C-alpha cells in the first residue's frame, strides 16, 4: 500500500465521519435537548437539498444557497413545532407517530413539487490529485463544515445565554421555569435549530448525492444508528459515534464491499447498545 493510497483511505474515512456528523447533528440536538425523536428528520434534510437545488437553478451561488436552504428549513421547523410537535410533548409515542406521519406528508409534497426523477447539483471545486488517486475537493469542504458545526454547537450551548438556558431546562425543567426561563420558547428554539442544521446538512451533502423526494430514508437510517450509538450527548455522543461508525463503515466496505459495510455498522450498533444501553455518552451523564 503506497502513501497515496493510505492518504486517500484516511481522507475517505474522514469524509465518511463528516457525512455522519452532518446527517445526525440536527436529530441529535432535538433528541438530546428535548427527548423528542424527530422521525421526519430525513425529510428535513431532503427539503434542505431541494431548497439548495432550486436556489442553484435560479443562479444563486451554492454557498449562499446552503444558507438559504437552512433558513428555509428553520422556518418550516418553526411552523411544525407550533402546529404539531408542541401538542405532543406529553407522550413519547405520540411524538413518534406524529413526526412519522409528517415524514410521509413531506415526502409526498416534495414529490408533487419537484417530481420523481433524480436531480443533481454539480460538485464544485473539481478534483484533488494525490499520487495516482483523485478525490473530490468538495469532500474537504464537508470535513471542514462538519468539524466547524460541531464546534459551533458546542460553543453555542456552553457560551451563549440561550444555550445555557436550554441546557438548564433539560437538566431541571421545574427549576428553570422557577427562574423565569420560558421553556416552551426554548423548546421551539431548539426544534428550529435542529431543523436548520438538518436542512444545512442536506444542502451541504446535496452535491454528492442524487436528490430525490425519497432520499430522506437513507439519511434517517444513518442518523438513527448514530444517535442510538452516541446517546443523548449532542456534541460528544454524535462526534464519538460518527468517528466509530464512519471508520468501521469505510474500512469494511473497502475490504468487503458496501453491503458488508452496512451490515457491520448495524452489528456494531447493536453490540454497543447491549453494553451501553444509553449510548456512548450515557456513561458520561453530560448533555453536550
Amino acid at each position, binding site marked *: 500500500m503506497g502513501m497515496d493510497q493510505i492518504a486517500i483511505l484516511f481522507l475517505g474515512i474522514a469524509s465518511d465521519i463528516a457525512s455522519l456528523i452532518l446527517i445526525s447533528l440536527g436529530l441529535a440536538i432535538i433528541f438530546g435537548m428535548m*427527548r423528542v*425523536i424527530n*422521525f421526519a428528520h430525513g425529510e428535513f434534510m431532503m427539503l434542505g437539498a431541494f431548497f439548495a437545488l432550486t436556489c442553484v437553478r435560479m443562479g444563486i451561488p451554492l454557498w449562499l444557497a446552503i444558507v438559504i436552504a437552512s433558513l428555509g428549513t428553520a422556518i418550516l421547523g418553526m411552523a411544525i413545532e407550533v402546529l*404539531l410537535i408542541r*401538542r*405532543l410533548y406529553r*407522550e*413519547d*409515542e*405520540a411524538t*413518534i*407517530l*406524529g413526526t*412519522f*406521519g*409528517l*415524514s*410521509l*406528508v413531506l*415526502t*409526498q*409534497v416534495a*414529490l*408533487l413539487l419537484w417530481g420523481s426523477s433524480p436531480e443533481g447539483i454539480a460538485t464544485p471545486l473539481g478534483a484533488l490529485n494525490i499520487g495516482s488517486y483523485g478525490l473530490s475537493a468538495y469532500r474537504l469542504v464537508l470535513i471542514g463544515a462538519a468539524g466547524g458545526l460541531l464546534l459551533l454547537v458546542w460553543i453555542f450551548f456552553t457560551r451563549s445565554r440561550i444555550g445555557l438556558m436550554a441546557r438548564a431546562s433539560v437538566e431541571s425543567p421545574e427549576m428553570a421555569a422557577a427562574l423565569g426561563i420560558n421553556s416552551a420558547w426554548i423548546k421551539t428554539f431548539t426544534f428550529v435549530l435542529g431543523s436548520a442544521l438538518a436542512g444545512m446538512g442536506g444542502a451541504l451533502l446535496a452535491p454528492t448525492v442524487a436528490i430525490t423526494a425519497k432520499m430522506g*430514508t*437513507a439519511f*434517517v*437510517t444513518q442518523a*438513527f*444508528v448514530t*444517535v*442510538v450509538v452516541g446517546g443523548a450527548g449532542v456534541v460528544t455522543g454524535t462526534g464519538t459515534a460518527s468517528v466509530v461508525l464512519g471508520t468501521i463503515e469505510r474500512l469494511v466496505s473497502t475490504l468487503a464491499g*458496501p*453491503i458488508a459495510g*452496512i*451490515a457491520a*455498522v*448495524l452489528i456494531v*450498533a*447493536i*453490540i454497543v*447498545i*447491549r*453494553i*451501553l*444501553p*444509553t*449510548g456512548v455518552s450515557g456513561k458520561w451523564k453530560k448533555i453536550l
Partner: protein
Amino acid sequence: MEKNTVTRMSGIGDNRRNQAWGLAALGILAVVVVSLFGNSFQLQQWSQWLVFCILAISFVWVWGHGGIFSFAQVAFFGVGAYSYGIFAINLSDATGETVSAVLFAVLASVVLAILLGYFLFYGRVADVFVAIATLAVSLVFGTLMTGTADTKFRVGDAILGGFNGMTGIPSLTVWIPGREGSLSLLGAEFFAVAGAMAVVIAFVVALVRESSFGRIVGAIRENENRAYLLGIPVPFYKVCTFSISAAIAGLAGSLYAAWGNFVDPTVFDLQMATLLAVWVFAGGRSSLIGAFVGVFAIQAVSDAIATTGTTITPLILGGVLIAVVLLIPLGIVPTIMSWGQTLLTRRIEEAGDDEDLRSDTNGSLKKNIEKLPASVVPRKGMTVAVDGLGISFGGITAVDQVTIDFPSTGVHCLLGPNGAGKSTLFKLLVGLYRAQIGDIRIGGQSVTHTSASWRARNGVSIKSQVLSLFPRLTVRENLWIAAYAKSGDPRDAAAVTTDLLHWLGYDGRMAEKRADTIAHGNQQWLDIAMALSQRPTVLLLDEPTAGMGREETELMVSVAQRIGEKIPVIVVEHDMDFVRASGAPVVVLHQGKILATGTLDEIRQNPEVLNVYLGRA
C-alpha cells in the same frame, strides 16, 4: 373458601374469554360466508388485507399489550416473506407442500427476534431507543436486500433479486391426506385460510392476554420497575413478548409472499412501517378488533384514492396519522367503546349508590387488623447483616461503611435527616444499587452480587418511598401479580389476593377499580399489601405512613408489629409517633454513617443526635 377465590379471580377473565369465543365464532362465520359469495377480484384484494391484519395483530400484542414500541415488526414480516420464498422455491418441488416453508419462515423471524431482543432488553435499552433501534434494523434490512441485485446473491435456486425482488415464489400449497396430489390454495380458498388464521390468531392472543403469562406482560407495560422489584425477570418476559410478536409477523410475511408469489425490499421500508403504525394506531393500540377495523378502513380509503389515478395516497395516510394522534389518540374502536361505556355506566351510577367506593376502609381494617390472613402470614424470617457497606456517587459518599445486624424478627427503625443515606441503604439492600464495598448477608448467605429480582424471589420485599403500582390494572390484578411473581402459582396467588382484599376491606367493587383511580391512602395500603402478598422473609418499608392520618398510622404500627413477630421489618420513618408507638430499636444515620443506635429514649438523650436534628454544630 379457596374454590370460591379461584372462580372469583378467573371471573373477570371469563367475561373477556366468553367474548373472545363469541367474536371468534362470528369471525369464522363471516370469513366462510364471504369466501363463498364474494367476487374473485374482491377476495383477492381482501386476502392481502387479511394478511395485513395478522401483521397488525402482532403490533397490537407487542405494543398495545407489551408496551414495546417495535418497528421490528416490519423486519420480521420481511424476513418471514423472504424465508418463505427461499424455502418454498428450493423444497416445494420435493415435498409437494409449502406448509413447512411457512413454519421455517416463522422460525427464522423468531430467531431474529431472540437475537435482537437479547441485545435490546438484556441491555435494558430505554423505550425511545427501542423504537429507533428497531426502525433502523428494518431499514438496514431493506438497504441490504436492495443491494443483492447481482445473481451471485442466491440461496440454492432462490435468487434474491435486489431492488427487483424475488419472483416465482410458490403459492400456499397443502397436502391433504386421502387426496390425490397436493392442493394449491388460490382465490377463495386462500381467502378462507388467511381469514381463519387471522381470526384464530386474534383469538389466541386474546386468551394469552388473560393468561398468567399475559398478565405479567401487561404488568411490565404498566410499571417495569415495580415488576422488577417484585422479582419478575423483566428482560426474559420482554424477549418472550417480542418473539411471540415475531412469530405472528413472520407468519404474516410468509402468507404475503405466498399470496403475491413475489417479495421485494419495499416490505422493509418506511412506508410499510408507517402503514402498520396507521392501521394499529387508528384502530386502537390495544384493540384486536381495532386491528381488523384499522386495516380494512385504511386500505379501503387508500385504494379508493388510488383508483382516482392520483398518487397522493401517502399524503392522506400521513395526514390520517397526524389527525388521529392529535384528535383521537385512543384510536377508533376504543373511542367508540368508551362512548358506549360512558352511556352504560352513567345509567348504573344513577341506579345504584357507591358506598364501597369511598376511601374510608379503616373501619374494616380495624376490625381485621389482628387477623392478618393465614395465607400471607410469613413463615420464618431471615437475619439481615450489613457489613462495611459503602457506595458513593461522584464525590458524595451516600452510604459510608455501614455495619448493622438485624435479627430475624422484630420491627427496626432507621432514622436520619434528609440525605442521610436511608433510602440509598434500602436500594443497596434490595439490589437496585450494587455495593462498591462491603457485604450484605441475608439468612447468613451473601447476596451482595445478586440482582434485585433474584433477591425479591428469595424473600426480600420492599414498599418504596414513592408509590409504585400498576396504574391501569385493577386493585385485584395488582395484588395478584405481586403474589404470582413470587409463587408462580396462579391458584395460590388468587387465594392470597382474595384474603388480602378481604383483610383490607377492599372486596366488593373496590377490587375491580383501576389502581390509579382509588384514593391516595388506599393506594398506600395497596402498595404495602403487594409487598405482603409475596410472603416475604424480610420486609422493607420506606416511609409507610407518609400522607396517613393518626388513626391510619396506628393501624400501620399494629400491622408492622404483627408481621414483625415472624420476620424482620425494617422501616424508614420520619413520623416519631410511629417510632414511639412501635417501640422499635432505632438506628440513626447521618451523612451515610451510623450516628447512634438504641431505643427511642436513648436516642433522644444522645447529644450528637440532638446536634444533627437541631442543627447545632
